[in-house]
């Protein structure tokens, strides 16, 4: 029965609705990994995570355990975390430094940082007359088919063919341009801490939530209200509450009807942008001091251009959610049809004054840490979605809000004026999904 259904996978997606099995069927999940995550460009990490030769981070690409490693040649390589001899995992720690070369803990085969075989104990005697040895590429660690980076953000694709990283990202490159341009030095540096949180729900539920502009005032009302009360209280006592309270209270002060004033832009490959809403260009002394540094680095006109970029979220389908004005990102690692790991990182703007980093840090700690005041309620809903979708109470998930009223121009779908809560981003993601799943055989 399943074979029959999967042959017709594209039929699981209609322009305004999707079959529930897309979220619950383990076999569809396996196909997604093969046809999407193990083909397209997946974010591995930032170059500053591995500054020294031999530094490595393990990373999951689709179902494949990979290693991102800095070579002696200064290049960042992405390899399968696997010894070609007997299949042993090469690096058992999440990150570290492998030294001059990789050395397998089982039979001491050693490899260069780019995965090339370096030595095998007693190779001449042990392997004389066999097909194994330095000249056999099967005796080296396998590299990701393609590795590219954009402004320090490293991506890998496990398929030899396909669009370049730049072509794949298209206009969603603004996620990295916006983040890096905000640094007076034009680049960012990772803060070496990764918060890792597991969601008991399908990976697509998280991505669909990222640009869902209707949910915040429903889901995050409790935190918004609480923060707003304390914010008012602090303001009464001291004159002004820190900006971090505004980041939380906006979830309540921006009432449900006002979310239609925002806009989403929906691009090919499922990428989308939600325009900003937090007013992150206040006129406090810290911001003004920062703007002075920016003027020095870029001049007035360019600074205005950079700080005028007004986005809250950029979603790079199928695995990355970037909040460029707050210098943080969440990478999505599907672990199973109903289990998803998010890896949450934040960055420093090189050359920016410390208070600007503190702003990013406050959001990272309050919204994105494992004691999150915001995502706790999202995760509760994601779990409930996954539970409900497993039932026979209905066959479809609907994305019908403002359907038929999207504006399309040159392949970019904009939500119409006053339709910010449109489910266009979900429709756009599922369109890309159907293309990936239908095209590949």
């Amino acid at each position, binding site marked *: 029965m399943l074979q029959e259904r999967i042959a017709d996978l594209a039929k699981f997606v209609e322009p305004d609705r999707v079959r529930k099995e897309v979220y619950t069927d383990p076999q569809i999940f396996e196909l997604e990994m093969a046809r999407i995550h193990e083909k397209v460009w997946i974010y591995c990490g930032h170059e500053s995570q591995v500054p020294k030769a031999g530094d490595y981070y393990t990373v999951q690409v689709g179902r494949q355990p990979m290693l991102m490693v800095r070579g002696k040649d200064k290049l960042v390589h992405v390899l399968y975390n696997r010894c070609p001899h007997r299949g042993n995992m090469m690096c058992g720690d999440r990150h570290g430094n492998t030294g001059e070369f990789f050395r397998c803990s089982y039979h001491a085969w050693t490899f260069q940082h780019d995965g090339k075989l370096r030595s095998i104990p007693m190779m001449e005697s042990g392997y004389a007359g066999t097909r194994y040895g330095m000249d056999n590429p099967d005796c080296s660690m396998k590299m990701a088919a393609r590795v590219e980076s954009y402004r320090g953000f490293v991506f890998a694709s496990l398929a030899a063919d396909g669009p370049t990283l730049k072509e794949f990202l298209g206009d969603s490159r603004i996620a990295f341009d916006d983040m890096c341009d905000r640094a007076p030095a034009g680049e960012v540096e990772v803060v070496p801490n990764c918060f890792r*949180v597991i969601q008991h729900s399908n990976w697509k539920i998280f991505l669909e939530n990222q640009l869902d502009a209707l949910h915040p005032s429903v889901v995050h*009302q*409790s935190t918004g209200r*609480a923060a707003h009360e304390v914010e008012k209280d602090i303001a009464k006592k001291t004159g002004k509450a820190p900006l971090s309270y505004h980041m*939380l209270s906006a979830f309540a002060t921006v009432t449900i009807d006002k979310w239609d004033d925002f806009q989403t832009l929906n691009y090919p490959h499922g990428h989308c942008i939600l325009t900003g809403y937090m007013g992150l260009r206040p006129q406090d002394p810290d911001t003004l001091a920062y703007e002075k540094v920016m003027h020095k680095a870029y001049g007035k006109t360019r600074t205005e251009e950079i700080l005028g970029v007004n986005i809250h979220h950029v979603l790079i389908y199928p695995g990355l959610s970037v909040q460029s004005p707050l210098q943080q990102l969440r990478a999505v690692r599907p672990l199973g049809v109903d289990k998803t790991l998010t890896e949450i990182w934040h960055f420093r703007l090189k050359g920016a004054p410390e208070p600007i980093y503190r702003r990013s840090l406050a959001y990272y*700690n309050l919204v994105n840490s494992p004691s*999150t005041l915001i995502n*706790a*309620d999202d995760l509760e809903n994601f779990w409930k979605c996954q539970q409900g979708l497993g039932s026979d109470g209905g066959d479809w998930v609907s994305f019908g809000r403002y359907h038929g009223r999207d504006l399309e121009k040159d392949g970019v779908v904009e939500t119409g004026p006053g339709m910010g809560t449109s489910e266009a981003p979900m429709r756009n993601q599922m369109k890309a999904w159907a293309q990936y799943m239908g095209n590949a055989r």
Partner: protein
Amino acid sequence: MSAKHQHAAEQFLYRQADLLDSKRWQDWIDLFSADGVYWMPPEPSYTTWDGTPAIFAEDKNLMTVRMKRVLHPDAWSQRPLWATNHVVSNVVVDKAAKNGDLVVRSRFHMLELRRDDVRHFAGQYTHQLKKTKGGYRIKLQRVDMTNAQAAYDYVLQVWV
């Protein structure tokens, strides 16, 4: 260290744990001094909460936000049945100043029930306690939770 200090420190820690388990949030917050901070670093090597990534780094204002959120009727994740049970032990009074201030280390184990799931958290508390007329107040509570370095299966809702 005197038996008096040991006894006072233990009683304080037991009372604090009891307030969490009985969800008396305001009474729990009141145990902190006006400038008190509750801090859970991501890993043991951190030496300050100020300006670093933290799982918790909360002054009394942020504690109040968390309390008000938890008590809001639409805090969806708070709807399901949940409860905690703390055990605090291995109490060591590291320092006792002349003015009565203490530095106290202890180990904790917390069991949490949410719906049908049980989770376990354990680690070390370090309390900097200020002696006041009304009893001890916490200037800094550092929580080095052993689980902190592993991936979180779901998140933490309130203080540990």
